[in-house]
């Protein structure tokens, strides 16, 4: 049974939210831009660039000596460091606070370990120029996001509310299919990252994307029709809208990268459009993952079967 969680301090929750926002908006956003513009190896050392540390803000000098690509790469590393510091603060807060429960502490620690691992994967990607490393780095980013979503939810005031109830067969269905949906999201993410790194065929990503989208479309539509928990219905609506946007962006990304619009316009404009659409597709993909993770967490831990 899901017992109400103890009251965790608000600032732990705020740090977790900040870490999640920075991770998605900055670290993943800039990371996606790097892959979209293919400047990941603009400066192949790590963590220093031209003798400067992660916390050197010499963008003008970098751009002049090593090109704008190295500035994008350096900024990504700095954003990753900021993510790391915020996750560290969250984990420290969870352990230092007497009001945080054991699960929250373990989740925050797991998020920290995953974030450090993700940084090391990024280093390996640069130092060994490894495509497998690049694919795992892309997947790892979203693993971190999922872990942070769990920390955010677990530390939120809403977590202390009593669990909502659903009929046992409905709850069982949701638990099975949201778990399958999460697995599909990660498989599709692996496929998408492989295509981005030119190590996998687009057809594979297409089939996995359609399967994933169809599964979550059906699930979210069913959740919205439930008579039960309003929070779950709201989250399902959010995910449904994100999925719709993601499908449209996917079609757009195909059209400008591989499809009929791939050869139109002058080179620089086309490059810019391709980079923007591909990065937006990645960013909305991360939001889909975060929203799905929130639903999965809700279904697994915040719902209970009707007492009969």
């Amino acid at each position, binding site marked *: 049974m899901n017992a109400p969680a103890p009251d965790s301090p608000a600032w732990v929750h705020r740090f977790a939210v900040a870490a999640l926002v920075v991770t998605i908006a900055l670290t993943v956003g800039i990371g996606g831009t790097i892959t979209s513009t293919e400047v990941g*190896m603009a400066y192949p050392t790590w963590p220093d660039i*031209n003798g400067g540390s992660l916390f050197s803000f010499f963008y003008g000098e970098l751009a002049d000596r090593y090109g704008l*690509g190295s500035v994008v790469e350096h900024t990504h590393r700095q954003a990753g460091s900021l993510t790391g510091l915020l996750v560290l603060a969250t984990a420290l807060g969870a352990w230092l606070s007497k009001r945080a429960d054991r699960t929250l502490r373990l989740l925050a620690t797991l998020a920290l370990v995953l974030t450090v691992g993700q940084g090391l994967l990024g280093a390996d990607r640069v130092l*060994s120029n490894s495509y497998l490393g690049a694919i795992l780095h892309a997947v790892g980013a979203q693993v971190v996001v999922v872990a942070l979503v769990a920390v955010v939810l677990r530390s939120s005031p809403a977590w202390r509310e009593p669990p909502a109830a659903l009929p046992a067969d409905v709850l069982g269905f949701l638990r099975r299919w949201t778990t399958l949906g999460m697995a*599909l999201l990660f498989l599709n993410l692996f496929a998408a990252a492989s295509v981005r790194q030119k190590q996998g065929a*687009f057809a594979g990503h297409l*089939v996995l994307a359609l399967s994933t989208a169809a599964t979550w479309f059906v699930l979210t539509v069913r959740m919205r029709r439930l008579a039960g928990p309003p929070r779950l219905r709201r989250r399902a609506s959010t995910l449904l809208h994100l999925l719709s946007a993601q499908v449209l962006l996917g079609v757009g990304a195909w059209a400008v*990268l591989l499809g009929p619009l791939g050869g139109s316009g002058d080179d620089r404009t*086309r490059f810019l459009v391709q980079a923007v659409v591909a990065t937006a597709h990645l960013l909305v993909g991360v939001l889909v993952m975060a929203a799905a993770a929130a639903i999965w967490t809700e279904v697994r831990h915040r719902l209970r079967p009707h007492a009969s």
Partner: protein
Amino acid sequence: MDAPRGREAAALGLVVLAALLGLWLLVARPVAVAPAPVQPRTFASPEEAALWALVVERTGEAEQPRPFGGVGLPFPGEADGGPRLAMGREVWRTQCMHCHGFDGRADTPTADLLEPRPRDFSLGIVKYTSTEAGAPATRDDLVRTVRNGLDTTAMSAFRGLPEASLRTVVDYTAWLLVRGDLWTRARAALAEGLTPEAALDRAWEATLEDWRTAPDRVVAVPPAPRDAAALLEEGRRLWTDPRAGCADCHGADGRGRGPLVWDAVAERWLLRDAWGREARPRDLTTGNLHGGRTTPDLYRRIHAGVKGTPMTGRGELLEPREIHALVAWVRHLAER
């Protein structure tokens, strides 16, 4: 209850099958690559356009390269290059094209974001080679560059590339380079007043001969003298010696802003390289030595120069001991 459970099991089976199909397609189908921009070639005259048509007729297009009229690749022992060139082109498309461009001209938007700019192969020049001044690169030079990368540049080491892919992409890169060299020489011959056919014929044999014989023109590196302290002192003195001329470009302090290349008043670079870009001598104090930092790398760079740049070789002017002394001083500047 049984009917809904049956439907759910069927749906579950369908989704799992779709996922397996997706994974299979991911690895079984060819990798799609967004088409790289292709800049149209511009020609100074109709004769130059006719000359380019002849070059293409003999060597093929970037997407359908031919091994130089059936005479094989210009490297010894490479008799049948056709299939290997086609394989190399495939590797090129996924690994090299986004920086070096559709046909090796490095005219991509990604290249605009990188400094040093990825190499434009259309002139047939490789900056860092083991060969003497005026000689092209050897196959080993290209293999070494792809495998080890160029230090502190976006050209990173491709150590994870399978050996077959590495070999074939080197074949293809060599094809681009030799074609670029051929085009440069033929254009020069055309400028002398030859017809396009005669210009190409003159350039053809000379170009292929130079690339074939490049391994015979590798700069031999004698063992370094053992008296390290004296050698370093000699290198420090030679650095500003007009015979070596290092400080003229690299500056007395090695920071790359010597009086021949940097206008300190107008704050602008004075010289250009073969590609028409600002020639910026290396700031050695950063420790960044793009062409490699081993003794043979540095010795050969001082001996033969950096091709396509104002840094000419000093092999004719300096004794081997003096070159070793400069190697010691360069290393001192880079590592202190």
